[in-house]
């Protein structure tokens, strides 16, 4: 198991390196002349030159990449061109906010999705199953800003139950912060629910169909015991992996949801950096997202190995 985890870690590092090349290419190479891009078409050529010099973008590409990557490894994420100050504190604050939002979404959606999937699986092929499956599929595929708007119109504007803006203000109490997070969390829950329910449903159906479930039933165990002790323990394994991969989709949704509800998270930060053509901020934000995703999938892999006795006891692919 140790070698397996080391191998996964190595592959993750390679992927991260590939990712850094993609981000570097998009943020440093493609814009052509960053000085011109930042200052706009009306700025004097000398000012553009001076800025390019200051940003170091007129040096050879390999040298730029090397400086950038070694900086990253030392914790130097670069200097924001819109705020003229280090990027790192912005990323840190935004990431903490996003994690609050994401954590609340997961706390709500994981039990809900598992419950939905199990109920659908127990009624497989019948109306309950079709309703849960089609609803889940529809909710999953509707973009977050669409469901976000519908939710905001109903609960924020018409019923006035929750505030439409997610920004609770500095030093707000925990209940107040939660109150502001309810509306933005709903579209995220919608998007995640379908996937989790779908995977749980598939896993549960397979486990219900298995020989060991039949044996358990035939030896006279109650249905609830069979489900709880034999079926769920096996069917929830793939669900763990799905939940981790959903972190990626969740972050994609954050860009839109945080912009819609004006919440100061990593998605909103990336969007504002994009608007200001603040490439160092954009690059750092995007790499952070990639890193979070890698850590999540790696954790899922390790968890899966630890929880699955077949893999834990030395079975290697």
């Amino acid at each position: 198991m140790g070698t397996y985890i080391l191998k996964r870690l190595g592959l993750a590092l390679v992927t991260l390196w590939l990712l850094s090349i993609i981000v570097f290419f998009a943020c440093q190479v493609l814009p052509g002349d960053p000085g011109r891009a930042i200052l706009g078409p009306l700025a004097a050529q000398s000012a553009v030159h001076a800025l390019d010099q200051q940003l170091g973008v007129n040096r050879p590409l390999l040298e730029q990449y090397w400086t950038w990557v070694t900086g990253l490894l030392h914790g130097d994420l670069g200097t924001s061109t819109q705020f003229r100050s280090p990027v790192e504190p912005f990323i840190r604050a935004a990431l903490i906010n996003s994690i609050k939002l994401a954590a609340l979404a997961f706390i709500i959606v994981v039990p809900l999705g598992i419950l939905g999937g199990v109920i659908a699986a127990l009624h497989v092929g019948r109306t309950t199953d079709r309703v849960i499956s089609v609803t889940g599929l529809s909710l999953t595929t509707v973009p977050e800003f669409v469901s976000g708007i519908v939710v905001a119109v109903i609960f924020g504007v018409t019923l006035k139950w929750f505030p439409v803006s997610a920004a609770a203000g500095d030093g707000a109490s925990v209940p107040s912060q939660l109150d502001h997070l309810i509306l933005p969390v709903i579209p995220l829950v919608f998007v995640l629910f379908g996937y989790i329910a779908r995977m749980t449903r598939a896993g549960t159906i397979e486990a219900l169909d298995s020989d060991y479930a039949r044996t358990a039933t035939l030896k006279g165990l109650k249905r609830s015991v069979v489900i709880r002790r034999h079926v769920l323990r096996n069917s929830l394994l793939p669900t763990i992996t799905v939940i981790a991969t959903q972190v990626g989709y969740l972050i994609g949704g954050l860009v839109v949801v945080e912009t819609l509800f004006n919440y100061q998270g990593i998605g909103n930060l990336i969007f504002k950096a994009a608007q200001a053509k603040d490439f160092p901020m954009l690059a750092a934000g995007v790499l952070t997202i990639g890193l979070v995703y890698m850590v999540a999938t790696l954790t899922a892999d390790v968890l899966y190995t630890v929880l699955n006795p077949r893999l834990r006891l030395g079975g290697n692919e």
Partner: protein
Amino acid sequence: MTEVAAAPAAEVTVAHGAGTAQLPPWRLVLRRPTFIVGATILLFWVVCAVFGHLIAPQDPLAQQLLATNQAPSGAHWFGTDQLGRDVFSRVIVGSRDILIISLLATILGTVLGTALGLIMGYLRGVADMLTGRAVEAVLALPLLVVVLLFVVAVGPSPLTIIVVIGFVFTPLIARTVRSAVLVESQLDYLASARLLGESSARIMFVEILPNVMPAVLVEFTVRLGYAIFTVAGLSFLGYGVQPPTPDWGADIAANYGVLPAGYWWMTLFPALAIASLVIAINLVTDSIEQVLSS
């Protein structure tokens, strides 16, 4: 108890196709109510995309400054927006750009991805390994973020969006096609083709390709859904279809600021349009998948 669970999983793929009734798959798909509902909605939006300007009761760009912010009525079914433009007409005509961009991007990704998948699955080797890594790297970033990154760097244009989405889809589709090819390459007809001295290219594109088409078709419809999702989000963020061209995402972005003032119709109807289109595609995808896997 738990050790016993592993074995049956492998047999699922083997049983594939054996139990299907005499009817050809496309007839089975047509019988599914979810497919009929999805295909009807999809067809409606395709007709709107093609003939939108003929169907729309008013010019979607015409501003009636004396009739701004009007609630839905007989004259304006979906009301008017802040510039007095007819929301109904804008929703009808707004289907065009999102459908064209998403469709072209998905076609690009599917063509490149299928070719790459055939090469990966049949020839294996370096291309196979490299693409495996590329898939990992691509998956580590949400599609919307990747497209946003490149569109900001190059400037928003439909071509950029199409190419970036197409390129991101390529390794993802290639992975699916690859595993379908791996199943095929163990079958006898390929051994006989090789013995007959057929070239690798001919075996890949003439012998294998028709047999992996179901997998390609499913992948195409799944990706089309993602593409629409992404293009809509991109337009909402201001990096997709540019105003004043009617577009659902862009129209929502332009009007959601006045939502708290009670002008809900300017955002709700484009939002419902996006939702209906994406749900329709997923209903179609789901029914095709169900038929092919049963």
